């Protein structure tokens, strides 16, 4: 599981030159190996559909649905009314209120400080306060 994670992180590092077929295949492989880890999150009982893997100190808001197939890296924050499935979120990421992410990858240290986003099959990256400034690449 960690092996695919490292490869995906490596792959999205060079944002302008991501191999789309590689990322799809790696994500598929990653999700078949994904186990469940729900300890050490901060929040009041969100909805989880297995498998969901949370690294340490993930903050989760109210009315959040995570899963199936969700990995969230350490110290990331998920705000209220968010729904995430088949998605990898790396460390230190902030996801804004009422986001719906399906089959996405969010690069580490990204901070998406705005509300209401519905994205599928995309890599998201950057620190931004507005949807228009969001850097994304569909795969």
């Amino acid at each position, binding site marked *: 599981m960690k092996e695919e994670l490292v490869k995906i992180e490596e792959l999205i590092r060079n944002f302008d030159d991501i191999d789309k077929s590689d990322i799809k295949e790696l994500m598929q492989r990653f999700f078949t190996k994904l186990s469940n880890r729900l300890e050490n999150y901060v929040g009041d009982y969100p909805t*989880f559909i297995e498998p969901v893997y949370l690294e340490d100190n993930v903050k989760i808001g109210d009315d959040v649905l995570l899963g199936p197939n969700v990995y969230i890296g350490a110290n990331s924050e998920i705000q209220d009314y968010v729904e995430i499935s088949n998605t990898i979120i790396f460390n230190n990421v902030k996801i804004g209120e009422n986001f719906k992410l399906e089959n996405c990858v969010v690069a580490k240290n990204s901070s998406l400080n705005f509300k209401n986003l519905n994205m599928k099959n995309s890599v998201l990256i950057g620190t931004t306060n507005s949807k228009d400034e969001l850097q994304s690449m569909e795969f």
Partner: protein
Amino acid sequence: MSDKEDKTISRIKEIESINLARDDIRDEVIETKKAVERDNDLLANKVHQSFIDNNIKSFDIVGAIGSGKTALLEKITAKLSSQYRILVICGDITTRLDADRIEKHNAETIQINTGRECALNAYHIHKIIKNKDLKNYDVVFIENVGNLICPSDFILGTDKRLIVVSTTEGEWVVEKHPMLFKMSDIAVINKFDLKERLGTDVDKMISDAKKINPKIEVITTSAKTGENIDKLMNLMGL
């Protein structure tokens, strides 16, 4: 499906009571509630069609907390797992205690922790089956969150719904929860082995269930002793 419909379905929110809505938003609340119910039914139909297309027998098991849903499922999966490929979806507020118990009987399990929601809905089930190759299963059981009220709001798209109550809840439990009995195909009165000791009027429970839903099949069982488990499986067509 239009973007608007997709967005509505994406946030299925149960609206507990129209009475709580202020006058200026009352119409909007009613329309949203109707839309949520309609969207749940649409998704449930989609789920059921997927089960049918893959020749899967499917069951939604609802019932009171502690009535013996998991214990019955343990008995049933133990008897079936040598001949059928079984998937059990377990709904609970938190923990995977039930899924762990059932998994010991060679069934694949998926736990849904509903957090603060009091019942599973078709959206949860649809999310799971979208990610599964249903060709790998013959039977799917969905063990709903222990609750005799909320599951009546959401059908899940299974062939049959079983409602489980037990002698420990007293003979009024059926009469007091008519809606779920109305919507179920089989009523199971479990912990029959405790009937004499508790003095529960099981005949009243049976006649109440039949009064509420004349089509419902009623069976008494004991998951503990194994009494009538085979008969229950026959009723389920297993």
